[in-house]
């Protein structure tokens, strides 16, 4: 019985999120656009996340390189290290790690911010003041996460590759020219494009989930905490699900 109830709850939640997402395309896409708020959110969400993303990306590139080296040395293909790391970073590690860090930072902050706005009636106040909160708060944030995550991923990939370059140079010597030449030689558009396109969806998911959880926060400070937390959890899970879908779709399209 409890299983049925929780399953119903799950379906209900899914339906609500779907409707919430639908409103982004119906309400959020209509003029007039909140351009100033969008820029503001892009600054908050994109620019201010950059140091965190840069740090994690750098460490990831470095560590991945150092971890992969021994097994490549075993097979005698140490010279393929840049190719291997480059492909891993650009195709999978870069987008997913960046998105997860992004979900942790932005998903929770959106969830908490909108949650506390909901609890302190600021969202109602906006409605009363003739502002559509969905448009002003949700659409701008979702738009900002959708646009900023790919940028962060690209920058993160670059920094990650630089970290990997340093990682290669710990044990052996390679020039930065040769390293990037090798990396780019192995890359194709079919590696880069799907991974950038999927980050658009990652960003969209993080934004939508954060806003949904915040918007439907229950009363009290505990409610805000729960919505911030569940925003991170749900968006992280969604990132992996989207990643799974993305790899299958690229496979289907023959881009893999």
């Amino acid at each position, binding site marked *: 019985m409890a299983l049925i109830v929780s399953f119903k709850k799950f379906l209900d939640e899914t339906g609500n999120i779907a409707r919430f997402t639908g409103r982004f395309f119906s309400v959020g896409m209509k003029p007039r656009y909140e351009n100033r708020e969008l820029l503001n959110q892009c600054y908050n969400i994109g620019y201010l996340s950059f140091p965190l993303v840069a740090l994690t990306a750098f460490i990831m590139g470095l560590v991945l390189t150092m971890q992969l080296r021994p097994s490549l040395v075993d097979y005698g293909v140490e010279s393929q290290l840049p190719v291997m790391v480059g492909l891993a970073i650009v195709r999978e590690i870069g987008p997913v790690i960046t998105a997860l860090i992004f979900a942790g930072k932005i998903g929770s902050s959106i969830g908490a*911010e909108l949650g506390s706005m909901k609890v*302190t*009636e600021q969202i*109602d106040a906006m*409605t*009363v*003041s*003739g502002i559509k909160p969905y448009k002003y708060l949700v659409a701008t944030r979702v738009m900002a996460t959708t646009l900023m995550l790919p940028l962060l991923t690209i920058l993160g990939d670059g920094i990650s590759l630089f970290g990997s370059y340093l990682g290669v140079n710990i044990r052996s010597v390679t020039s930065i020219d040769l390293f990037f030449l090798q990396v780019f030689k192995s890359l194709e558009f079919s590696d880069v494009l799907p991974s950038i396109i999927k980050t658009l969806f990652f960003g969209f998911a993080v934004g939508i989930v954060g806003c949904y959880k915040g918007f439907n926060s229950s009363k009290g400070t505990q409610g805000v905490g729960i919505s911030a937390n569940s925003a991170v959890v749900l968006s992280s899970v969604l990132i992996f699900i989207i990643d799974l879908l993305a790899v299958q779709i690229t496979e289907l399209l023959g881009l893999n």
Partner: protein
Amino acid sequence: MGTTEVESVIVIKDLVKGFGDKIILDGFNLTVKKGSNVVVLGKSGSGKSVLIKCIIGLLQPDSGSINVFKENIPGMNEDELDKARSKIGFLFQSNALYDSMTIRENLEFPLLRHWVDIKKEEVNRLVKEALENVDLLHTLDMMPSELSGGMLKRVALARTMILRPEVILYDEPTTGLDPVTAREIEKLILKLQKKNHTSSIIISHDMNCVKNTADLVVLLLEGKCYIEGTYEELEQSSDQNIKQFFE
């Protein structure tokens, strides 16, 4: 009590609103005359907040009608609601000032939204005037987090007033404030009301507030209008349900 010649600003008929199986408002009726202050009295959870949120269109009632300036709020679409809302002020219990904005931006925000073509100088003038009315001009470029509870309430009041609404809905304006500050807020409400000739519905269970502001008191009990009368009339009532508020 107003006379019959005075036009009615808000007319609520048979309002029903429930959440799930629980019915909060069950056939509520209320008429607010122009220029009068109506206080809705009731216990916590009796549905007072639900009532005024239905009036401003934040909640959709299950049935019944709410006519504000002869227009039915529940039947409106978003755009019409926006238009109607520009004539209705709403003072939130938690003030609902935007944390991320300065006091100036908080006050500008509704102005820029409702009056799209307004000029910059006009905005500045109106913001300053509204803050002067509540004696808080010096807080213009401060953030809400830097102000005390009483100051926040006054800023919220200024923000509610800035659009010159004809009807103002107060959601527990004195709750959570010390008695001295509460009296100041009451005085401000009355002062601004006189200045702008507004009508209002005040929700409260603070009897001092009721006594000082009410032209008419309505007791909300079990989702219905239990009784309405002046403060003095209710104070002398022997009904147990009424007497418990005055003890």
